[in-house]
C-alpha cells in the first residue's frame, strides 16, 4: 500500500511539473528450460536444479524524474521466479529502490536508497551488479557537502538491502577528501597533484548471543592518498577495522586491516601499472551471521585480470576476504607503425602478471589452534608472505591489423588456480591451465563483418581440456547472429559439448537478444564471493531498453 502510494505521488508530481524530465530503463530476461539427458538436467534429478516451473523470468524497470536541482526515482523488480543461478533470496516482486535527491550550492541531500563509495571502496561501497544478483544499496540518508573549493565531505546513515528485505545492522559513515591543489591557491598551478582522504565507518548490531561477549558497535577507519605528476600516478589506501567476530571469520576477535597500493606510468603508446595489496580479516558485513554476498559493507577488489574470453572465465579468482596478499603488473604497448613488427598499422601488446598468496598466520599461543572461535584467532607478520599459493596468472595479448579489412588478436594465458582455497570444488588441488585464443575480425563490406574465436584450454586437473569455437556475424547498426560450441573433450567422466545459437536486434538504446542452447556449470565471483551456477539447457530471451 505504501509502495502504491509512493508511485502515485511520484506520477502526479511528474505530470504537474511540466518542466522536469522523465527517464528510465528496463530489462526483462525470460528463460524456458528444456530437459537434457547429457547434462542430467531434468526433474528426476533435483540436484541439477531443473525448475519445476520450466519457465523463469527476471525483470526490472527504473523510472527517474529530474527537475533542475531535484530528482527522484523508483525501481520495480520482479523475479517470477528467479533464473537459475540467481541467489535464492530473489523471489517475488516489488519496489526495491526509491529515492529523492536535492542539491544546491555544493550541498547534496539524498533520502531513501542510494549507492555510495568511500575511496577505493575497501571500507565502504554500496553498488549493484545486477547480472550477478548483487545489490547492497543503503536505505537511509546521505549528505554530501563541499564547504570549500577542493574539499568534499560525505556522511551517511542507513541499513542495507537484503533481497526484498533489509539487514538488521545500522551503518554510519563519514568521508572527507581534499584536493590540495584546489584548496590552496598557491598550489593551483603546480604540476604535482595531491589528494588526501579519510573515512570512518561503524556498524551497529545488538548482541543477543549468549555464548560470546560481542562488540555491538564495530568501527573502522581508512586513509588514502593519491599523487599525480604528469605521466606518473600513485595511489594508496589503508583500512583498519576493530574487532569484528562473525560467522565468516569463525568468531575471532582479531582486528582487520587492508592495504592497497598502485602506481602507473603512461604516455602515448605506452602504459605500465603496478599494484600490490594485503588483506587481513577484512570481511565486513552489517549483520555478523550473514554469509555469501549478503550485507557486505566494503569491497575488496581482486587484483587479477578480468577476462572476457569464455574459456578464460572457467577458473575466475575471487578475493579471499579473510586474508591474502598479492601483486599485479600490466604493460600496454603499441609497436609503432612502419616498424618491422608493427607493419603498416602498428601492433598492440598487452601483458599481465598477477599472483596471490595466503598471509602468514601464527598461533596466538602454543595451545590454541589457528582461527579458534572466541580467541584472537591468529597473529600475522605484516610483511611475511604465507606459504600457500592461491593464484597466479600470466597473460599476453597481441593484436595486429593486417589490412583495412582483417585483424587478428592472439592471446596466451597461463594460470595456477588453488581451487580448495577459492571455491569449494569437489576437486581440491591446484589446477594448472594453459589457454590459447585466436580471434579474427574480418570486414566483409561496409557495415557487414564477421568475427571468429578459436579457444583452447588444457589442464590435467579437474575437468581436463576444453575447446571452443565461435562465429559472429554483425550487420551494423541492427543485427547480430552467432553460433558457438564449447566441448569439454578432456573430461574423463563425461565429454559434454555445449552448443548455442543466438541472434539479436538493436535499435538505439533497445536491444533484443534470443538464444538457444546449453550453458555450462560455472563459477561467478563478485568481490570476495563465488557462486556455483548449475549447467542448463534452454531458450532465453532478453530485452533491454533505456529512455
Amino acid at each position: 500500500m505504501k509502495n502504491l502510494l509512493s508511485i502515485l505521488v511520484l506520477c502526479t508530481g511528474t505530470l504537474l511539473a511540466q518542466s522536469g524530465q522523465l527517464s528510465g530503463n528496463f530489462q526483462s530476461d525470460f528463460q524456458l528450460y528444456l530437459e537434457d539427458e547429457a547434462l542430467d538436467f531434468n526433474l528426476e534429478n533435483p540436484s541439477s536444479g531443473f525448475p519445476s516451473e520450466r519457465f523463469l523470468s527476471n525483470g526490472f524497470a527504473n523510472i527517474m524524474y529530474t527537475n533542475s536541482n531535484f530528482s527522484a526515482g523508483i525501481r520495480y523488480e520482479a523475479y517470477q521466479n528467479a533464473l537459475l543461478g540467481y541467489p535464492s533470496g530473489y523471489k517475488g516482486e516489488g519496489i526495491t529502490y526509491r529515492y529523492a535527491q536535492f542539491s544546491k550550492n555544493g550541498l547534496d541531500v539524498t533520502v531513501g536508497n542510494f549507492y555510495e563509495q568511500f575511496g577505493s571502496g575497501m571500507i565502504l561501497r554500496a553498488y549493484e551488479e545486477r547480472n550477478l544478483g548483487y545489490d547492497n544499496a543503503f536505505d537511509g540518508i546521505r549528505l554530501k557537502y563541499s564547504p570549500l573549493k577542493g574539499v568534499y565531505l560525505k556522511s551517511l546513515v542507513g541499513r542495507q538491502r537484503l533481497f526484498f528485505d533489509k539487514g538488521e545492522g545500522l551503518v554510519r559513515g563519514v568521508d572527507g577528501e581534499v584536493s590540495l591543489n584546489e584548496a590552496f591557491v598557491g598550489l593551483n598551478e603546480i604540476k604535482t597533484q595531491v589528494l588526501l582522504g579519510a573515512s570512518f565507518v561503524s556498524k551497529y548490531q545488538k548482541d543477543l548471543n549468549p555464548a560470546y561477549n560481542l562488540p555491538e558497535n564495530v568501527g573502522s577507519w581508512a586513509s588514502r592518498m593519491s599523487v599525480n605528476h604528469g605521466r606518473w600516478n600513485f595511489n594508496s589506501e589503508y583500512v583498519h577495522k576493530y574487532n569484528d567476530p562473525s560467522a565468516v571469520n569463525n568468531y575471532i576477535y582479531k582486528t582487520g586491516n587492508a592495504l592497497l597500493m598502485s602506481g602507473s606510468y603512461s604516455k602515448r603508446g605506452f602504459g605500465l601499472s603496478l599494484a600490490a595489496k594485503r588483506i587481513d580479516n577484512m570481511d565486513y558485513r552489517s549483520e555478523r551471521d550473514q554469509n555469501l554476498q549478503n550485507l557486505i559493507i566494503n569491497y575488496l577488489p581482486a587484483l587479477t585480470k578480468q577476462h572476457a574470453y569464455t574459456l578464460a572465465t572457467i577458473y575466475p579468482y575471487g578475493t579471499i576476504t579473510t586474508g591474502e596478499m598479492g601483486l599485479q603488473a600490466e604493460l600496454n604497448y603499441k609497436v609503432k607503425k612502419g616498424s618491422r613488427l608493427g607493419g603498416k598499422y602498428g601492433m598492440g601488446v598487452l601483458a599481465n602478471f598477477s599472483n596471490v598468496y595466503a598471509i602468514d598466520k601464527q598461533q596466538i599461543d602454543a595451545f590454541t589452534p589457528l582461527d579458534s572461535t572466541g580467541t584472537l584467532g591468529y597473529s600475522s607478520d605484516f610483511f611475511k608472505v604465507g606459504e600457500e599459493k592461491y593464484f597466479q596468472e600470466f597473460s599476453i595479448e597481441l593484436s595486429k591489423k593486417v589490412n583495412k579489412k582483417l585483424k587478428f588478436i592472439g592471446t596466451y594465458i597461463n594460470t595456477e588456480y588453488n581451487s580448495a582455497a577459492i571455491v569449494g570444488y569437489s576437486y581440491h588441488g591446484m589446477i594448472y591451465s594453459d589457454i590459447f585464443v585466436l580471434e579474427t575480425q574480418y570486414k566483409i563490406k561496409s557495415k557487414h563483418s564477421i568475427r571468429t574465436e578459436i579457444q583452447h584450454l588444457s589442464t590435467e586437473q579437474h575437468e581436463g581440456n576444453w575447446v571452443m569455437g565461435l562465429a559472429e556475424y554483425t550487420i551494423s547498426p541492427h543485427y547480430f547472429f552467432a553460433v558457438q560450441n564449447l566441448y569439454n573433450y578432456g573430461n574423463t567422466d563425461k565429454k559434454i559439448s555445449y552448443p548455442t545459437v543466438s541472434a539479436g536486434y538493436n535499435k538505439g538504446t533497445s536491444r533484443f537478444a534470443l538464444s538457444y542452447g546449453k550453458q555450462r556449470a560455472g563459477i561467478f565471483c563478485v568481490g570476495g564471493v563465488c557462486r556455483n551456477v548449475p549447467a542448463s539447457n534452454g531458450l532465453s530471451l532478453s530485452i533491454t531498453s533505456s529512455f
Partner: protein
Amino acid sequence: MKNALLALAIFSSTLTALAQDKISIFPSVNIKSTDGKMINTNSFENDGNPIVVSFWATWCKPCAKELDAITEVYDDWQEETGVKVIAISIDDARNAVKVAPYANGKDWPFEIYLDSNSDLKRALNVNAIPHTFLLNSKNEIVWQHTSYFDGDEEELFEEIQKLK
C-alpha cells in the same frame, strides 16, 4: 503467459515511443579525471561543437573496439565537425589503476574520466556498456546507442554531421 507477453509488448512499445525524439539534458554528476581531480559533468564543453560521451571499461572488448574504430577516423571527424569524444570508464578499484595506461597504450586521443561507482552510468540509465551518447552544443542528449557492431561509428558520424 499470453497476457504477460502482451503486457510486455505494450510496455516496450510505450517505452520505444517515449524514447523517440526526446531531448534531455545531460545530468550533473561528479566524476574523476585520470589525475584524480573531481570534475562535474556540467563542465563538459567543446566551443559549441558536438560532444560524444562513450562508456567503456578495461575488461569490455566491444568498448575497446568502438574506441579503436573512432581513433582511426578521429582526425577526419574533428576536421569536419569539431567533435570531441569523452570516454568514461566504469572500472572500479580492481582496475582503476589500469585505466590511464590502457588508454595511453592504445594511443586513444580522447579525454578519459573515471566513474568508479557508476554514479553517472546510473544517472544516464545505462544498462550495459558500450553505450554512447551524442550531445549538442547545449549539452542536450540528441542521440544514444547501446552495444557496438563493426561499422556503428558510421551511423554515429552521420548523427554528428546532422548537428553541423
